[in-house]
């Protein structure tokens, strides 16, 4: 299985999915015209990782802006991680936000709500 790296564009996140460490890093802004198209390779990588590696996963999120479609896609991605967590796997999510950025902190809190898997908000 391969690692997945997507360089950030004006309207898309930087993505690094490492199958050796099980760490997924999503960073930046996301407002592409077709959010589903952008998130598809990340979903696919996750499915392959679950099938072929089946080990712990850490999702690190450093988000500055998400449009509504991207929010929905990220929700679906996290839902899949939660399903994986419910099978007894170790999964955790770290939501990083700049200390003064109340909006991103609030967004993180919305994602965290009703979540069963460990979801931590970390300021920097």
């Amino acid at each position, binding site marked *: 299985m391969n690692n997945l790296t997507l360089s950030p564009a004006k309207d898309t996140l930087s993505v690094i999915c490492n199958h050796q460490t099980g760490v997924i890093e999503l960073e930046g802004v996301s407002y592409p*015209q*077709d*959010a*589903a*198209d952008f998130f598809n390779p990340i979903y696919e990588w996750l499915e392959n990782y679950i099938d072929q590696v089946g080990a712990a996963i850490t999702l690190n999120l450093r988000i500055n*802006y*998400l*449009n*509504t*479609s991207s*929010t*929905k*896609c990220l*929700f*679906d991605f996290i839902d899949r991680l939660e399903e994986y967590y419910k099978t007894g796997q170790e999964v955790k999510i770290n939501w990083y936000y700049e200390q003064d950025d109340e*909006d991103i902190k*609030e*967004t993180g809190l*919305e*994602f965290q*709500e*009703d979540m069963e898997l460990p979801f931590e908000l970390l300021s920097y």
Partner: protein
Amino acid sequence: MKEDEIEKIMKKVFKKEYAYLETYKTVIEEKNLSPTELLDKYTQLLEAYRMLLQDAVKITKIGDINQKKLFEVNEDLEQQKQILYQTSITDALTNVFNRAYIMGVLEAEFAKSKRYQSTFSCILIDIDDFKAVNDNYGHLVGDAVLVKTTSIIKKQLRVVDSFGRYGGEEFLIVLPATKAQEALLVAEKLREKIAEMEFIEKGHKISISISQGISDSLTDDLQSQDDLLYKVDTALYQAKKNGKNCSVIYKNIE
């Protein structure tokens, strides 16, 4: 983007939810389901609906947060744009218009006067013996004198007049709807105000004076604003020749 393209994208974004729709719409068509099977399907559908509602609420809240953030960023950008614009047209030391801006005002006023046959005037001001101020008291004191001089001049002008730094210790005033003779009255008032001011800078008492060249646009020989600048410059030169601390109208030079 076209409507059908947007719909195609939305179908991909809501793939899971569209799949639910396909699965559960068959329940109505299946006539032979037992009450237990029906209850089972109903429970599944209810759970799917609960999840969807939960996501919809969260997405709406996050959408609102992001929208607020966008508006705040936009407001901030607007403010920065204003600051940048003000900085780009202002002389950093004296806080009056810079050369580029005052030349733009002159160009626009010249075009207006040609188009509407209107009259405007220009006053070119030079601080007399300013080099001596710098040489005797240093550049910091020289800068302070420039700031005070411009502040006095600014207070005497009308809102419609434009005042900018033309170069070192030279300043240009553009006075719309003003003939040279009227501009002379303004210039003389400025000259008197400056002459009676005593600048005290870092313990030094400094008196200064200004010389001024004046011209209006009421002549046929003006091809461009540069011709008018030539005239005020020549008048200013004459004012210096006349012994400084005075104002000269170009058309009065013999």
